[in-house]
């Protein structure tokens, strides 16, 4: 860096993403507290450890191959040509945004004086990966083995969400070009895919012992500690601020980027490099949170668990288009999303005997899908990219945002990249006898031995006189 203004822009961008990473760490703290609060006393410590250990597992695999997948797969491969090299193959050539630079042995994947951005951008995406895996973690508590969860966390955190991000959350993604897909703050690429993945696992894993009566009536289990759940959800809200900021590029000159001769236009952009403002999305964030809370309180008749979760579901539902919506549109969309999530949760629970312990499939999956579909109607006709806009299905330029494309996008996120891989992997793990803990352990409690040892220690210490 040799000119002051360029250096300032680079260092500002570096620091901007660094701050988002720190904020997003709170999402994971929140998920851990939430899960421990929702689990029963005899499973607390294992529940906490399961969610904690996804941090190193997803981080290492994100370093080894997850980040590479994001940069290699925007073309499908084979579905739409890249605007960088006009090839539909995996992007591994010498172009500026090629996956070639992000193999784990690349010298850009380290302290490099010539690159101030790759590391913090890598970390911001990694925190999204933790979130995807953590969403799944809550749904399967108290009966999955830590081994199986580790494998599944890597699959969703470092493989499947990364593929969907390359397809639909990348300026060169084929879903933008062919479907006009738009998902600015990840209704689909994080939430719908993780919700679908969790549902796929739950279908194979089965409910907790005692969740359903002999006649099939669902019973309520917990949460054991509603205060921990409350703090957990507030921390997730807090981390979500960082998540929103991390989905933006803080400063970008769109004039030369779009090939407009003689035009200089500095702005913040979303991940697709189309303009938005941090100011506007902040209003939308708060209005969608409020819409979610209002309806959640109403529909659940003041149940705290559902009210807090609905605040989150509201943001998730409005997120796809929160870069462009009016704040009141955002609030109304959030309200619709909460009704869909709440009603679907209980319908699926009764109909298919699915035990989603924390409502993760509903809050993330159903609200995310609803958000994508609604976005297709509300933003119908907006360009999905600033580079060029053409007609749907051509694939060489970008289709505009449209209802059909967004509906197909929602199916790809929830079902193709979420539900199916989750179901298949769970089936394989089940076949190996590795998916679920033994029945006797589930009844006794995963923490039985730890608690017994602690009691023995307590007795020994209490009876000591010196």
């Amino acid at each position, binding site marked *: 860096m040799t000119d002051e203004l360029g250096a300032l822009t680079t260092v500002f961008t570096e620091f901007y993403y660094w701050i988002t990473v720190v904020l997003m760490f709170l999402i994971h703290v929140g998920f851990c507290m939430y899960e421990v609060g929702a689990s029963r006393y005899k499973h607390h410590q294992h529940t906490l450890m399961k969610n904690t250990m996804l941090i190193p597992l997803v981080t290492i695999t994100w370093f080894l191959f997850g980040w590479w997948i994001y940069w290699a797969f925007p073309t499908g491969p084979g579905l739409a040509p890249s605007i960088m090299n006009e090839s539909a193959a995996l992007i591994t050539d010498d172009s500026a945004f090629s996956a070639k630079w992000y193999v784990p042995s690349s*010298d850009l994947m380290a302290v490099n004086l010539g690159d101030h951005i790759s590391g913090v951008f890598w970390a911001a995406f990694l925190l999204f990966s933790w979130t995807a895996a953590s969403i799944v973690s809550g749904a399967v508590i108290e009966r999955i083995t830590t081994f199986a969860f580790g494998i599944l966390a890597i699959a969703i955190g470092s493989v499947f969400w990364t593929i969907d991000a390359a397809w639909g959350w990348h300026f060169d993604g084929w879903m933008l070009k062919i479907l006009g897909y738009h998902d600015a703050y990840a209704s689909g690429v994080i939430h719908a895919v993780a919700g679908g993945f969790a549902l796929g696992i739950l279908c194979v894993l089965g409910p907790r012992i005692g969740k359903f009566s002999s006649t099939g009536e669902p019973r309520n289990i917990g949460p054991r500690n509603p205060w921990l759940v409350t703090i957990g959800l507030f921390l997730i809200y807090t981390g979500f601020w960082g998540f929103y900021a991390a989905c933006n590029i803080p400063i970008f000159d769109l004039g030369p980027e779009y090939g407009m001769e003689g035009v200089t236009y500095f702005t913040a952009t979303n991940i697709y490099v189309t303009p938005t403002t941090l100011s506007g999305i902040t209003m939308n964030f708060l209005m969608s949170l409020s819409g979610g809370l209002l309806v959640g309180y109403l529909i659940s008749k003041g149940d705290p668990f559902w009210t807090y979760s609905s605040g989150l579901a509201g943001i998730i539902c409005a997120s796809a288009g929160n870069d462009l919506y009016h704040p009141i549109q955002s609030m109304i969309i959030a309200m619709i999303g909460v009704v869909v999530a709440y009603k679907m949760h209980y319908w699926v629970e009764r109909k298919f005997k699915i035990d989603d312990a924390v409502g993760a499939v509903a809050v993330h999956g159903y609200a995310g899908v609803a958000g994508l579909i609604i976005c297709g109607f509300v933003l119908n006709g907006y360009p999905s990219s600033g580079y060029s806009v053409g007609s749907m299905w051509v694939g060489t330029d970008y289709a505009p945002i449209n209802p059909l494309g967004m509906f197909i996008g929602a199916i790809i996120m929830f079902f193709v990249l979420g539900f199916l891989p989750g179901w298949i992997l769970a089936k394989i793990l089940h076949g190996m006898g590795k998916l679920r803990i033994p029945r006797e352990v589930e009844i006794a409690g995963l923490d039985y031995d730890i608690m017994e040892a602690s009691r023995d220690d307590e007795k020994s210490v209490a009876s000591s006189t010196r």
Partner: protein
Amino acid sequence: MATVTNWIDHLSAKEVQGAVYPGVGTEGILVLIALVLWIGWHVICNMQETSKLEKLARKRHGASDYKNNISDW
């Protein structure tokens, strides 16, 4: 092992080398080590967890037995 031994020489070079970590050129070996550690962790933890779960399952505790173990330090 040191990639930089003099910052003045390093930064005044015609083309400043970006990679400054120790052992530039050994990245492939480092990746192999990371792979072994990652896979090895899964193998060992799986064995530990399996034996722990089997041992606890054999004891056949009741659903409320854990309450006798609640400590209050």
